[in-house]
């Protein structure tokens, strides 16, 4: 038995039992019923109202949404069953991500051991309490037995134990965490899904932006994409590309950053001294690396902008949390493939028709970019993530001929 593991949901002896439990089929009625009950339980918890991320998660779990997702998955006509036991190493940065990972594991038909963030987030507590209350009822006990939430420090040998038992392992957490967890061997047949360090960027079409009568709404959306988690979520844009005529781009930038500054003033906490120094230091390094860099207008250290003279490869290395953006006026979407590497994840956009984006992605196959989503939606969870279909990853195909 592993050392120093705190079982938030489930008990120590349940782990070995889970490894032996039979899997379920994806989107089983029992799982959907349970998730709907969880949705109701979270909706009843007054604490959840203070945490939009918890409320959003609860809403995601409702039956109507699950039925839509099941319908989309029907495109895959294979017979699928859960792999068995999935071991989830949740990211430490986004408090509710562990819950989405768990839902994917459950929906695919698995038993789950989920390592939650070591930091004591209130969001984790609210969701954990809701799970405990729902699974106390006898009708949800079978699903409840598929859920173990654990918290432990890096020094524990728990990762080795859970890895040795699991049929699939999912690691959220960046390159260093992935390499670290990979040191723990899994059974030969086990499958692994990893989420590494990624880089995200945005594209704004100046003319539609200028035509929009509510720039503050777009700025508010962009705030949620970026400042909400200090640009530390992998989905947060660090680079902003502008499309359109020089005149329109100039006007759009002014309007956009003026609105952003107002939103940041209203919603963001005080700028920390270290972050202010970080931004200046990153800007200096960038100026040295890329000739022609200029500081864009900023009333203070809340927003730092590095306007690029050209769009260089390797720009993803020059980023800094807490409100630091590189910017470039691109002639068209065709400027993008030259810089995109495997590191690129989310492309957030405003004012570009979806059909045009689809045509762009189809006509320019790139090593990166897994998601193209409207500004304001970068943090939305989807069963398709980082280029993976998570239900397919957490289940196996049974061929019958």
């Amino acid at each position, binding site marked *: 038995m592993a050392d120093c593991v705190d079982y938030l949901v489930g008990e120590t002896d349940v782990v070995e039992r889970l490894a032996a439990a039979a899997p379920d089929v994806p989107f089983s009625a029992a799982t959907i019923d349970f998730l709907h009950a969880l949705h109701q339980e979270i909706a009843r918890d007054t604490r959840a109202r203070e945490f939009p991320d918890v409320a959003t998660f609860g809403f995601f779990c409702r039956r109507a949404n699950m039925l839509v997702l099941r319908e989309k998955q029907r495109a895959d006509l294979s017979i699928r069953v859960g792999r068995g036991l999935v071991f989830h190493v949740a990211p430490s940065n986004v408090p509710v991500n562990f819950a989405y990972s768990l839902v994917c594991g459950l929906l695919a038909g698995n038993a789950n051991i989920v390592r939650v963030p070591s930091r004591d987030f209130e969001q984790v507590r609210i969701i954990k309490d809701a799970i405990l209350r729902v699974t106390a009822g006898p009708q949800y006990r079978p699903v409840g037995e598929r859920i173990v939430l654990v918290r432990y420090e890096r020094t524990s040998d728990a990762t080795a134990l859970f890895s040795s038992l699991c049929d699939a392992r999912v690691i959220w*957490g960046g390159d260093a965490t992935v390499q670290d967890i990979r040191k723990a061997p899994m059974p030969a047949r086990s499958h692994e899904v990893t989420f590494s360090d990624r880089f995200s960027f945005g594209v704004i079409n100046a003319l539609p932006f200028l035509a929009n009568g509510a720039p503050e709404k777009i700025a508010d959306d962009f705030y949620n994409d970026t400042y909400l988690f200090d640009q*530390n979520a992998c989905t947060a844009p660090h680079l902003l590309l502008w499309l359109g005529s020089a005149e329109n781009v100039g006007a759009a930038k002014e309007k956009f950053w003026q609105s952003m500054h107002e939103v940041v003033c209203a919603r963001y906490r005080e700028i920390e001294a270290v972050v202010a120094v970080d931004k200046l230091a990153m800007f200096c390094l960038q100026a040295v690396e890329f000739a022609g860099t200029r500081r864009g207008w900023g009333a203070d250290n809340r927003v730092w902008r590095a306007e690029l003279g050209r769009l260089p490869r390797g720009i993803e290395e020059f980023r800094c949390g807490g409100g630091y953006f590189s910017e470039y006026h691109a002639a068209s979407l065709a400027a993008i493939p030259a810089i995109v590497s495997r590191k690129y994840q989310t492309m957030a956009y405003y004012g570009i028709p979806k059909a045009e984006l689809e045509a762009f992605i189809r006509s320019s196959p790139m090593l990166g970019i897994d998601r193209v989503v409207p500004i304001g939606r970068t943090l939305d969870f989807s069963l398709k993530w980082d280029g993976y279909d998570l239900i397919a990853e957490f289940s196996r195909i049974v061929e019958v001929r």
Partner: protein
Amino acid sequence: MPQERQTTAALKPDNAEPAGPVNDGTQGASTSVADILNIPPYSLNREEKARLLDLVLRQLTRRHYENCAEYRKIVDALGYDLDSERPYSELPFIPVRLFKSLDLLSAPRSEIVKTMTSSGTSGQQVSKIYLDRSTAANQTKALTRIVSSFLGKQRAPMIVIDAENTLKDRNNFSARAAGILGFSIFGSKRIFALDENMNIRVDEVRAFIAQNPSERVFLFGFTFMVWQHFYRALASGGQTLNIDNGVLIHGGGWKKLAQNAVIREDFKSRLREVAGIPQVHDYYGMVEQTGSIYMECEHGYLHAPAFSDVIVRRPLDFRPAAIGEPGIIQLLSILPASYPGHSILTEDEGVICGEDDCRCGRLGKYFKVNGRLKNAEVRGCSDVYMQRVVG
């Protein structure tokens, strides 16, 4: 301590050389740093100092702009106009950490005579500071001017609270070695109080004091070494020294001792108890601006000498903070000529306590250093500061 108060008229060097170009500061082009270093370090008031620094620091900015490509790119990117005659408080400043990731020189490599490094812990990048002959000489001169105003002009027997083998690599100076060597010019004879295992050599120190009767004994060491290997070694061994003519100068920061706030409060009285040392001065400075250090006065304030200055800036917009308002410390110095380190933003928090009116009589700004800037409470990020994350 009595200070040589000088009026504007006495701005000329105090060693009776003919008045240099310093006096006609508005003309500019050839203001010599060496001449300025002849000004008694705490003798300029706000206006006098501004007249001097506006001119010299503007010249230095141009020098680095013209001779250091990296610095030029930074100044251009920040949109700073070199031809504007703005006060020195509006000159560009660069974060001190740039000296860790970039090689910044404003002189040909062939003229570099010494490379200083910061004392980073293993695995961390260290600052690399490149000195040509005249920058190195000016550092020594500045240090001499500052320290001798506290110690007197006569050299004194010197007790270094460190081990001799700290100096072993003469080509690559650690901050500690550079500090010991730099301050050694004030010693007539020198003894190292610690052996290579950092054990105190009490008998040798006693013998050294007995053999070198003097008006004054100069002790020097890094704050942490003084506390850990001198004070604590004496106190735990139940031993005492009686250096009642001692002046201890220590620096290097309180970082390693920060957990224990009591130490800072009681540092002086404890040293008096175990070693009888009546006079103890902390100093603040960094390897990026060696020479122009900030000495602590009898009233516990750090003082900016004539040839350097400190500005405390607000995190929100980098504007200068008011007196009494804590912020990020910027340091300006006229010494760095071979590398663009004349205006740097530190990662320390400090507060200006006043200007020209310290009870000790020294002119210039006086201030306190509160310690390193606090690590950011990075929302969404967890275990490790600035660990990049993923979702």
